[in-house]
């Protein structure tokens, strides 16, 4: 591809192989990866979890710890072989010639050092500087990554900065020594879309300004598309497809790339099944128990309503602080209004999407709707009856509102067989008899596309997608009418995400469910929901039919949010 002048590429990776020697045998995390990168070029490395994209990044700069080992191949940086280089020499390259930005800056920044001290240490790793000079350069570095008031920020500790600011600090540290190459491992994954958009834009400018080459590792095709000129798609340790970003994304050659693109809800018509074709349809869910008593709805009451609900989180003072406050020695801490007088009506059968960025109060509102948190004020009613009791120890009163949680690794009891977990709720509420429980569980497992024999297994024996199916079966086995889904696909890979979205759409239609679907991912909400409510700082700022809100946003915040979402190039066909 390169013409005569730029003869040697900046980075040349040939047949790189990294293996992990584990108890279960040798795992080839990176299996013969080859690519090259020119000066100032941005390459995206895309893949799902376990594809080996991060390990590829770590292998390049020699950060593979035992039991892992770079087993073969070569990594040449400006013609110099890095594989097999002594640790000391690799260290002298890291931060100076190649540097790295990680996903979670809270993990990579030292919590007990100020930003300025950390930058000084990073400078001193390769140069000797005076304290005043280090400070001057720290401030300049922070200014370069567009941190406001860098003279003040330099004395902050990491916890005093927001996620986006922390990631900017990490980028500033990576840029300190003007490296030739920066490897970014999912640098915006933990951030909100609007912050992600800012960082992407800044990163593009910085790279152009400094002529640094960039390897951008991400699971998100759209983010990669908005920054990288070249992209390589990884799967099971191999690069399955590589080329100019536009070509790969608009004319994918490999079946896997096509499947990845088809799995994206943003590329399908709302309400359509994703990843069309293939697969046997799952069994129908078991019938409701007709004998289960269902209270008759209160006449003329809306189906589901949250009536001016608020949630205030207060830190309860301990005895000493409480005394201090009474005596006026200590200021009481300000209460946080997570949700501030929000009203919401959901008619029967509707799917309402609740979108917003972190801290907007969408999860808190969802938890009040689901009867997990009692509102500080206001009530939540289902068919005219309160979902939770009043009093100092509120209890949930209905089984007809159920929840599916975000993280299927956390929401299943690790020490309970999944069959027991699915059966215990229906048994406790008489929805199924003791003798019928085993069959009921098997029917539900079949209905969510799992082998009924899995009932005997423990959660750790399942993958993330399978666990989320179990969590869905557990919630739906309670025979609810309304299901609150709190980011149910946020922690899953795109292809798994597509399967779970399909499953939710199918079960919603088959069971006539009403959904409250909480997500930070606007495309997922558009795909699944009839109506959307946008939350911002504890309030709903805009609400309406999904199509209208997306195509013609009224509120300023909604517009900004929609503009921040990275968009894939449209297929030319």
């Amino acid at each position, binding site marked *: 591809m390169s013409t005569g002048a730029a003869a040697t590429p900046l980075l040349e990776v040939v047949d790189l192989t990294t293996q992990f020697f584990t108890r279960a045998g040798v795992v080839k995390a990176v299996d013969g990866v080859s690519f090259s990168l020119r000066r100032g070029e941005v390459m995206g490395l895309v893949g799902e979890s376990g594809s080996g994209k991060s390990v590829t990044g770590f292998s390049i700069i020699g950060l593979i710890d035992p039991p892992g080992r770079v087993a073969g191949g070569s990594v040449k940086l400006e013609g110099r072989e890095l594989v097999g280089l002594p640790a000391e020499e690799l260290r002298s390259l890291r931060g100076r010639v190649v540097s790295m930005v990680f996903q979670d800056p809270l993990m990579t920044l030292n919590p007990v050092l100020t930003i300025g001290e950390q930058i000084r240490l990073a400078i001193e790793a390769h140069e000797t500087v005076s304290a005043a000079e280090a400070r001057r350069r720290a401030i300049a570095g922070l200014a370069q990554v567009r941190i406001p008031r860098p003279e003040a920020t330099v004395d902050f500790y990491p916890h005093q900065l927001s996620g986006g600011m922390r990631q900017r600090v990490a980028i500033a540290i990576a840029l300190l020594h003007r490296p030739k190459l920066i490897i970014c491992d999912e640098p915006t994954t933990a951030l909100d879309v609007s912050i992600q958009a800012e960082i992407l834009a800044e990163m593009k400018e910085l790279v152009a300004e400094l002529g640094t080459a960039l390897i951008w590792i991400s699971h998100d095709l759209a983010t990669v598309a908005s920054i990288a000129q070249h992209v390589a798609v990884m799967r099971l340790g191999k690069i399955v497809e590589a080329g100019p970003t536009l070509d790969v994304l608009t004319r994918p050659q490999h079946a896997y790339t096509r499947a990845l693109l088809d799995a994206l809800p943003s590329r399908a018509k709302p309400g359509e099944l994703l990843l069309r074709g293939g697969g046997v349809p799952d069994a129908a869910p078991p019938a409701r128990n007709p004998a289960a008593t269902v209270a008759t709805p209160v006449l003329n009451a809306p189906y589901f309503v949250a009536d001016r609900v608020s949630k205030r989180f207060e830190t309860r003072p301990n005895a000493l602080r409480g005394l201090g406050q009474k005596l006026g020695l200590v200021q009481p801490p300000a209460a946080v209004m997570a949700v501030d007088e929000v009203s919401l009506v959901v008619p029967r059968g509707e799917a309402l999407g609740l979108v917003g960025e972190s801290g907007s109060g969408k999860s808190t509102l969802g938890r009040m709707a689901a009867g*997990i948190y009692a509102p500080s004020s206001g009530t939540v009613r289902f068919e005219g009856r309160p979902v939770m009791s009043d009093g100092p120890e509120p209890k949930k009163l209905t089984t007809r509102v159920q*929840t599916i949680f975000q993280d299927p690794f956390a*929401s299943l009891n690790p020490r*309970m067989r999944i069959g027991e977990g699915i059966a*215990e709720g229906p048994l*406790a509420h008489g929805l199924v008899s003791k003798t019928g429980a085993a069959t009921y569980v098997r029917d539900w497992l079949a209905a969510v596309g799992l082998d009924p024999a899995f009932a005997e297994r423990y959660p750790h024996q399942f993958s993330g997608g399978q666990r989320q199916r179990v969590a869905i079966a557990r919630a739906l086995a309670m025979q609810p009418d309304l299901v609150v889904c709190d980011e149910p696909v946020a922690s899953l890979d795109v292809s798994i995400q597509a399967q779970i979205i399909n499953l939710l759409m199918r079960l919603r239609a088959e069971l006539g469910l009403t959904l409250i679907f909480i997500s930070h991912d606007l495309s997922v909400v558009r795909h699944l929901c009839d109506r959307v409510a946008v939350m911002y700082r504890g309030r709903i700022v805009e609400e309406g039919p999904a199509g209208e809100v997306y195509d013609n946003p009224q509120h300023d915040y909604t517009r900004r949010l929609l503009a921040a979402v990275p968009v894939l190039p449209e297929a030319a066909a």
Partner: protein
Amino acid sequence: MRRETPIARFWSEFRESRVAVAALVVVVLMIGVALLAPLIAPQNPYDLANLVLSDARRPPGYVGSSGYTHWLGTDAQGRDLLSAILYGLRISLQMGLVAGAIAFAIGVTLGIAAAYLGGRREAFIMRVIDLQLAFPAILLALVISALLGQGKAQLIAALVAAQYAYFARTAHGAASAERGKDYVEAALSTPLPARQVIWRHILPNCLPPLIVVATVQVANAIALEATLSFLGVGLPVTEPSLGSLIANGFQYMLSGRYWISIYPGLALILLIVAINLVGDQIRDQVNPRLKR
């Protein structure tokens, strides 16, 4: 996908530490000989008819008037020390295990109840426990055995009073962490009855740290019991535990008849060190921070 059960996985990791396996073998052996004491001990040390005063204070290897060798010597009453140690081990283990089990039940109930209830009730329970932890366990046990008098039940009460607080603290910490996890919220939002959430969800997930505390506390209970018996406020002389045996021989130490105290002491040390080594290994295994 791993098909092995959690217990099989636990055992395969446990096996990797030779020291721990050796310690476990020692613990199992000592429990075994303690259980079988009436069958394997050469002499019934409680049967006064068996004791011959002319055999008293004989060194190890002495062939007594009954015709068998006293491998560890005899004490001041002419009791075969090996038999006395086997029977003493039986009592010491019994005290440690029973006191540990009762302390476990009381402490875990209080700790989990406090974590589950929250608010003022949690504060009250935990402050009482903190207050109690401020006193040395030995002081507390001394006061209680002095008040209640001698006897097995009284001694167990003293041991439990000195130890339940450790279980309560650990259970409270573990349960507070589990209480906030999604799967407990999921169970509560089903809704499941509180009893079921505690028994089937919170308690099983609190067990790993509690098992570690339990092993260490059984060892501590045995040591505490020995201390109390040594000080004369533990078990009556008719039921000598290892602690009483050490106390019995103590007065002969300086006259060169070391075996009367030393051998029961060695048995005690061996038992406590072995239990602690097993406990250490379990702690390392259940501590996710040390996971490779």
